[in-house]
């Protein structure tokens, strides 16, 4: 079937509008008149590159270890309460990185909360968690659930006959792991490593609070000092291109489709563990859950209690709540309506051109928000000053990075339904509009709706773009949390964090685990 012209041009228009920030930054960078070598010397290029790279690698390794080990243990061994354990292990993904960083920074400052508690054991001072170690801990603890989700999904889909066969042939445990289990998990491991790497590369909140200079933090620092300086352009472009590449590989890999389209789990015989090993396993899970979930919550509530005792000013957060909900709902709704024509085009009319458009759109999801924000700020000032610091621009910027979530979810719901529906519809003589109304739309509706709910949740947590593009006087919970944290006002920051989590935590959890729950048993 040929795609209607208006639909096709609408999609091209949307895609072009969405990738304009990338091109703008790229061309501005080409115009930099400074000598590149001189630039590298002045702005400490190598150190920055090393710092960013080492954090990405560190977090990827730790979150892979945490995520992979727990998914293997839960899917291969008989453990009482494994459903609850799995849920608790996944839950930390509801924390935005800056809230995680806030709890760790405030609890483990040299004379902070942890010391209050540790004085009972004779410890009066600790060296504090910040910089590389702080960022590493926080980002690993709040990204491993993604690895867990992805690997658990794949592992439950693999049967363990091969493992049994290898064992009966007398292969050792080490060999079994390296030769049989790991190779089969190569794809999900690469996929989740890319996902986590991308997350760390674009993270702004956690590294800022932890005072560790990665590309994103440095871009913002230079932005503060010299808004149109070479450093801002060059580093933003560099970061944008790197993450575009990573995101392109990640979002369009086979695993991406498999995960969204995973079938029922195979019946796997789970093995018993002896008492000692069971004890070790439980201790491990308790430790992970404690540091990634219980501790941050305890810290937040400690500060809340402190705040309530000293008279918390609720008026302070009222504006933030209202602002957050307003922009997030608007973005979520718009995402729903814009995602429809795009998803229809991608499902109803399959062409190579559409495939390219789809790949580009899906790639946008992983892009660092700070660079999109900076680019749109410059574009609006230069070409459309009317939109500068407007809600329209802010919401447009959200759509660029979050719309792929709605489209992705819409696409996922169509993978299971074959082309024959469309063919049948055309054989029956339905017009294209009727096909859309009777066949395609009902197929994608719920997918896009739950995708739009995800857009809502992502928007409510968004920080750097809001920081750069918000209308003057406009506030969101994320902005409040960030500005309170850097001012060291932890009680106020904790109060806003708790409200943000109260709004977003449960739906985030439900939507992120919807693939898991559609299976019969965990």
């Amino acid at each position, binding site marked *: 079937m040929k795609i209607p012209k208006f639909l096709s041009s609408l999609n091209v228009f949307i895609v072009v509008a969405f990738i304009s920030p990338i091109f703008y930054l790229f061309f501005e960078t080409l115009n930099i008149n400074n000598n590149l070598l001189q630039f590298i010397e002045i702005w400490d290029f190598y150190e920055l590159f090393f710092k960013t790279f080492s954090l990405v690698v560190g977090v990827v390794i730790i979150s892979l270890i945490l995520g992979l080990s727990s998914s293997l243990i839960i899917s291969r061994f008989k453990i009482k309460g494994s459903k609850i354990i799995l849920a608790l292990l996944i839950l930390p993904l509801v924390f935005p990185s800056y809230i995680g960083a806030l709890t760790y920074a405030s609890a483990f400052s040299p004379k902070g909360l942890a010391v209050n508690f540790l004085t009972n054991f004779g410890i009066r001072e600790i060296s504090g968690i910040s910089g590389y170690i702080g960022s590493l801990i926080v980002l690993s603890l709040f990204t491993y659930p993604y690895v867990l989700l992805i690997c658990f999904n794949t592992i439950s889909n693999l049967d363990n006959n091969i493992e049994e066969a290898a064992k009966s042939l007398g292969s050792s445990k080490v060999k079994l792991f390296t030769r049989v289990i790991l190779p089969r998990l190569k794809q999900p491991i690469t996929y989740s490593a890319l996902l986590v790497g991308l997350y760390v590369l674009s993270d702004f909140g956690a590294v800022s609070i932890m*005072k560790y200079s990665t590309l994103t933090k440095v871009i913002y620092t230079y932005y503060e000092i010299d808004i149109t300086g070479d450093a801002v352009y060059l580093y933003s472009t560099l970061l944008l291109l790197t993450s575009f590449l990573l995101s392109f590989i990640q979002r369009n890999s086979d695993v991406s489709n498999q995960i969204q389209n995973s079938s029922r789990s195979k019946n796997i015989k789970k093995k018993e563990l002896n008492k000692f090993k069971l004890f070790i396993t439980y201790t491990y899970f308790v430790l992970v859950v404690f540091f990634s979930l219980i501790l941050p919550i305890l810290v937040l509530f400690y500060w809340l209690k402190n705040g309530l005792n000293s008279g918390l000013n609720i008026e302070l957060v009222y504006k933030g709540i209202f602002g957050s909900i307003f922009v997030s709902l608007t973005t*979520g709704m718009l995402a729903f309506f814009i995602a429809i024509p795009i998803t229809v085009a991608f499902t109803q009319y399959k062409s190579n051109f559409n495939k390219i458009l789809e790949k580009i759109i899906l790639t946008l999801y992983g892009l660092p928000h700070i660079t999109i924000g900076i680019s749109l700020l410059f574009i609006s000032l230069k070409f459309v000053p009317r939109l500068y610091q407007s809600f329209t621009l802010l919401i447009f910027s959200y759509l660029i990075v979050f719309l792929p979530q709605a489209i992705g979810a819409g696409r996922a719901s169509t993978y299971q339904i074959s082309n024959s529906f469309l063919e049948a519809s055309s054989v029956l003589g339905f017009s294209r509009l009727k096909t859309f109304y009777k066949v395609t739309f009902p197929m994608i509706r*719920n997918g896009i709706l*739950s995708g739009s709910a995800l857009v809502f949740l992502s928007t409510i947590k968004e920080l750097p773009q809001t920081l750069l593009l918000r209308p*003057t006087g406009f506030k969101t919970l994320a902005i409040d949390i960030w500005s309170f944290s850097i001012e060291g006002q932890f009680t106020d920051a904790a109060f806003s964090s708790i409200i943000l989590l109260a709004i977003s935590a449960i739906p985030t959890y439900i939507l992120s685990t919807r693939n898991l729950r559609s299976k019969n048993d965990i």
Partner: protein
Amino acid sequence: MFRLKNRNFKLFIFNNFFILTFTLIACTFPNNDQGNNLVIYSGRSESIVDEIIKDFTEETGIQVDVRYANSTELANTIILEGNNSPADLFFSQDPINLEKVAEQNLFTQLPNEIMQRSLNSNYQFNNYWIPTSIRVRTLGYNSTSTQQEELPIDLYELINPKYKNKIGLAPTNSSFITMVSCMIYFDGEEKTNTWLKNIHDQGYIEYPNNSTQINAIDNDEIKFGLVNHYYTLRYKSENQTSNVKNYYFKSGCGSLVMPSGIGVLKTSKNQENATIFIEFLLNSNTQELITNNLFEFPVIDIVNQNNQLPEINSFLNLEPNQWLELSKLQTKAVELISKAGY
């Protein structure tokens, strides 16, 4: 199959609920009519400005929207915005950033009668902006863990190895950049560069701003912090038992006197209300609040300075043309700070 249907049904309910909530909120959301609100770009932090703004709105009925950010960032933003700037007023931490905007000819000239209200007659600044309070650079320290003889004579003594890993600073803070610009102006680029490099290489602790440094001094994370004087005093008034204190260097940029000031943008469509706001900042109630609650030096003579504040005359006080020179050195200062590895 039944399970699947049930799930879709739940999703359907959830989603419709989502649409319904949106519609309700969209209907009740007030029209954000920013056209008449006074827009202030404030480099001074929310904890300082918010109270003043509230009083102002209560007294005059004029609604205000404030954009809080670093003074340097805001000055650069205003210059970048040029004729399209939505701002009516620029309220800055220090003269450097005000002078930068003034040099681009983006401020409107204030009437003489307003300029004369500010005490410091030497601050005329071509009537482009007006000082609203005075602050001083200082060294914060903890008087329980630090003896008098441990205190340095001037900034340059801080590169003595005995201060290794004991100093905190906020390298991106406007006031710090201003201090470095001042050092370049008076002591030369080379000496400043050596100082920055030495402090960096011997070990220091980085903070995002002044208030976090004072916190850290109280917690013994650091012994000294290069801050503005009022952060220490304010912290102490909120934490009576704390022993954080200010040490004022006898001379040099370490105790630079920095007026904080405000100017009206040429492009402002709210010139009248903007002037009312400046008058409000200079009235005796606000000036009393500024010195009694916020521990800064007042700029009108009928208000006495807070008795916890030192005698200001001995500190380094610049002439308007010197501030202009300093504003031209700001980029150099940033470059040196970055080159030194901060």
